[in-house]
């Protein structure tokens, strides 16, 4: 068993877990943060994507013990003071989700992407979400949401 401490959404969180514990299971089962979804567990669907020190990674392909001491942002950490983030509002406004299973992964991925590319062209927006699968929306509204989020962020400033 290993003592694992992570800064999750700005708060230090600790648990004793086996070396084999995936970061996705650590978040969901040990910390009770079930916003991070698990679809395929082999890196393909992107539902489990979280930000590790600000960069998107697959929580299902990372052992919690490997990232001890690092910062993790999950979908629960995107809203600030009870207000949805611009990316979350854009997805709601543009119907960028239906069942919502894939959504946490899209939200974290798009949040990191827009930080690096605040005004993406259409093909850039499409490529940004190409590593996330959605069985419901057909992606059109997700791409719209990316553009809308960029607009909201530009309007509201940092």
């Amino acid at each position, binding site marked *: 068993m290993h003592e694992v401490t992570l800064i999750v959404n700005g708060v230090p969180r600790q648990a004793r877990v086996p070396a084999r514990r995936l970061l996705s299971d650590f978040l969901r089962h040990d910390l009770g943060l079930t916003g991070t979804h698990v679809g395929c567990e082999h890196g393909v669907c992107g539902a489990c994507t979280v930000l590790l020190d600000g960069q998107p990674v697959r929580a299902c392909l990372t052992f919690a013990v490997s*990232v001890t001491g690092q910062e993790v942002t999950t979908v629960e950490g995107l809203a600030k003071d009870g207000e949805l983030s611009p990316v979350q509002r854009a997805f709601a406004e543009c119907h960028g989700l239906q069942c919502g299973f894939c959504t946490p992964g899209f939200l974290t991925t798009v949040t990191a992407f827009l930080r690096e590319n605040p005004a993406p062209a259409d093909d850039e927006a499409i490529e940004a979400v190409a590593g996330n699968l959605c069985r419901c929306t057909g992606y059109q509204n997700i791409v719209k949401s990316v553009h809308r989020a960029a607009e909201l962020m530009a309007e509201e400033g940092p």
Partner: protein
Amino acid sequence: MAEAVEALAAAGADGKVLAGGQSLIPLMNMRLAAPGQLVDINHVAGLGEITAEAGGVRVGALARHAEVEASETAFAAQPLVRRALRLVAHPAVRNRGTTVGSIVHADPAAEMPAVLALLGGSVRARGPEGERDIPAAEFFTGPMESSLRTGELAVSAFFPAAEGGTAIVEVARRHGDYAMAGVAALVGPDHARVACLSVGAVPVVVDVTEAEGDWARAARIVRERIEPEADIHATADYRRHLTGVLAERALKEAADA
């Protein structure tokens, strides 16, 4: 690093290195691999460096695909490295997966082993008996198999600058997937060669200097040399055809680069 090498040696055949985990953890999650012990190198100091050396660039075992892709040092020494990395999986996988890990994993469908083979690079390994450099031509021994010995840690890979222009092209079912076929090419003043992915047990390097700039002829040479297999994505014939087309394209692009 000494501790990692020791732990690996102590674990013997039961031990495996855990680098980015982007190939090993899927295999474990699917219960296709069940290593007894993992030696996690993610916190080992001194393994993440990307350094310019005479005649090329050395990439440390912990340099993530995304870091190597963004590295101006690597790009200046060998631009093919960045171009090839953009074809490896998706950014979220590249943020964690390592370039050296992908070479050691030695998937014949992977881009970076082919790039290393094309350029005639090498892998630096450290084991209980010390350090050695393994040339790419001897490194890849079969699908997912390398000449790395039990207990050896790959500490870095060296990508030579190589004289001439380079290019890489591939066709994948979906953006970010492993390629059905792909070709990396190097064309210099008096040499031309390609490395093909997904058409053999290891990256297949074919010297096409004798085509003398007739890239359609080079494509025919490549088609004769490869032995692709069929799988759910493509028939063997289609792979052979496609590899020829891609070889011609990559060679043209490399010659113009």
